């Protein structure tokens, strides 16, 4: 058993999209060279604004999208060599919207036992028992077994989705905005549940969220994505206490905690999120950066190792240290 469960090496995903309706197709680098490793027992938070490629990355790891470049290794084996069923046994997703992630024509029992069916589990007689066991684990009463999704509340539905993901005992659960569609009071229930399950079942999570407070609360390590690249990666404490990348800092400033005295932060992020089809040159963040330097628009920064991870910013490149000190 290796320590690393998922090893993403320079993964790329390029979509050909029609740019502005009729100008022919243009490449959109949704994921543009992401390298990241996830160790057993870790909770990796991936944060970033919409369009930064976090969901695309998750789909690639789940095997739902073939990377157009780079490798993804699951337990040391390239994902391309694994069958769909093998990938499914290893990792499972939980989606954002529990209203669309459950088939409305299937009962709760049917939904949760589907993974067993698909994996051709050899003990069909034990299915019901195992499903009910998982239902109890996620806090669903047994008598919900024969109900349909429309008969459940949003929180219950999300619990069904969690139970479905867990019934085959995967190693890794990829949660894509698991609480964004839920009300605050339900959100905390699901977060608590995910926390409990993590310890009980020894799970590894990839938590994709735009809600930094949630990520801070649950994740052990955080990767910040911007326009298809991980611009900063560090363990949660250092990232939230000593953010390095100007984008990370802006993101953290934008988090609105319920503290009335603080007022609305001014993030100084002038321009809007760039069009991913025509990304800015050099460092893709330079048009919005408050500490932009001359060469930022020309040269793309390389990853620089930090205490607990890495950052992609010219401010921290070895040859830029002096310049920074002067300015």
């Amino acid at each position, binding site marked *: 058993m290796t320590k690393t469960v998922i090893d993403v090496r320079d993964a790329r995903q390029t979509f050909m999209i029609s740019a502005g309706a009729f100008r022919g197709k243009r490449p959109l680098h949704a994921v543009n060279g992401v390298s990241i490793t996830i160790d057993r027992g870790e909770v990796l938070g991936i944060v970033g604004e919409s369009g930064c490629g976090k969901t695309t990355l998750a789909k690639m790891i789940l095997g739902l999208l073939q990377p157009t470049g780079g490798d993804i290794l699951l337990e040391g084996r390239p994902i391309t060599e694994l*069958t769909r069923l093998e990938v499914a046994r290893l990792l499972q997703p939980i989606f954002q919207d529990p209203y669309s992630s459950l088939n409305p024509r299937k009962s709760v029992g049917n939904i949760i036992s*589907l993974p067993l069916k698909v994996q051709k589990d050899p003990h069909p007689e034990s299915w019901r028992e195992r499903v009910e066991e998982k239902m109890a684990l996620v806090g669903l009463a047994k008598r919900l077994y024969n*109900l349909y999704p*429309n008969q459940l509340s949003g929180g*219950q539905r999300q619990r069904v989705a969690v139970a479905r993901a867990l019934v085959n005992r995967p190693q890794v659960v990829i949660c894509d905005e698991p609480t964004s569609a839920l009300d605050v009071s339900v959100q905390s229930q699901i977060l608590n549940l995910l926390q409990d399950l993590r310890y009980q079942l020894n799970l590894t999570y990839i938590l994709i969220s735009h809600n930094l407070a949630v990520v801070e609360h649950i994740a052990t390590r955080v990767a910040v994505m911007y326009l298809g690249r991980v611009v900063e990666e560090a363990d949660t404490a250092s990232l939230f206490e000593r953010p390095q990348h100007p984008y990370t800092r802006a993101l953290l400033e934008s988090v609105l905690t319920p503290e009335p005295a603080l007022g609305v932060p001014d993030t100084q992020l002038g321009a809007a999120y760039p069009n991913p089809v025509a990304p800015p040159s050099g460092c893709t963040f330079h048009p919005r950066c408050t500490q932009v330097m001359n060469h930022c628009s020309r040269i793309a920064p390389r990853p620089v190792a930090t205490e607990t991870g890495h950052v992609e910013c010219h401010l921290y490149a070895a040859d830029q240290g002096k310049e920074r000190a002067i300015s």
Partner: protein
Amino acid sequence: MSAPNPTINGTLAGAPVVAQILEPSPGAILRRRIFGHVGLVLGGAFLVLIIAMALLAPFLAPHDPLDQELSRKLIPPIWHDSPKATWEHPLGTDLFGRDYFSRLIYGSQISLLIGFAAMLISGVIGTTLGVLAGYFGGRVDMVVNFIITTRLSMPVVLVALAVVSLIGNSLWIVIWVLGLLIWDRFAVVMRSSTQQMRNLDYVAAAQALGCSTFRIIVTEIMPNILNNLIVVATVEMAHAILLEAALSFLGLGVQPPAPSWGLMIAEGKGFMFFQPWLIGIPGAALFILILSINLLGDGVRDVTAPENQN
């Protein structure tokens, strides 16, 4: 309820949290809606009656629909104030003296057979094309779209007439020609419904569980587009029946002496001024059949419409 609930600071993962049932099951909702829908019940009831009439034709019809008796031709129906009207021929006779009531009953067999069979053929073609295009998108979608556009640009009545006139007309040829021509609506509707379902997370969840594409289409997508399929099926069944009637009316569908309703109208056309029932009765039968099929289809659409679901 008087004691403070200690679980407020964190529910245990194992504890049942919410047990309130919000809604009855989809099946129960559907049953309630079906029987609350006047059009659906009415259309369904009439259709069942007509189907029963077709199946029991040999027992219901008082005469052989093909039996000619020229001495008894053009007897008016029973409600006509005419000395010739007789209960032996409640709906009168046509110009060959054939019993109109029996012809009407046997005619329902032809209409229903053509409607069902042509709907099945076109349904299989159209649904296959539509679901494949909607599910796979990209090139497949482009090709299917092209086929649909091409098909739509061919005028149905004209092509059907031309083909039937060229390869001869029997009941089954009419059925196949219609079936091969009217699948476009199936394809269009199934394509867009599949596209909608395709992008929902439960399809992605099924993929992530390792389900095969076939399984996803059959067990995840099809049940959710079945309601649209039924609606289109009723529309196309009605369409096929009307087309057959029109073809027969123009003399290029079902051949005489078969008791096709369209043919009966065509045969009665020349006598419509003095014997208007000759076109009135088969036309009304056709109208009621199509109306009940359409009511059924509209009803299915209404009771399964998502905006009523919440």
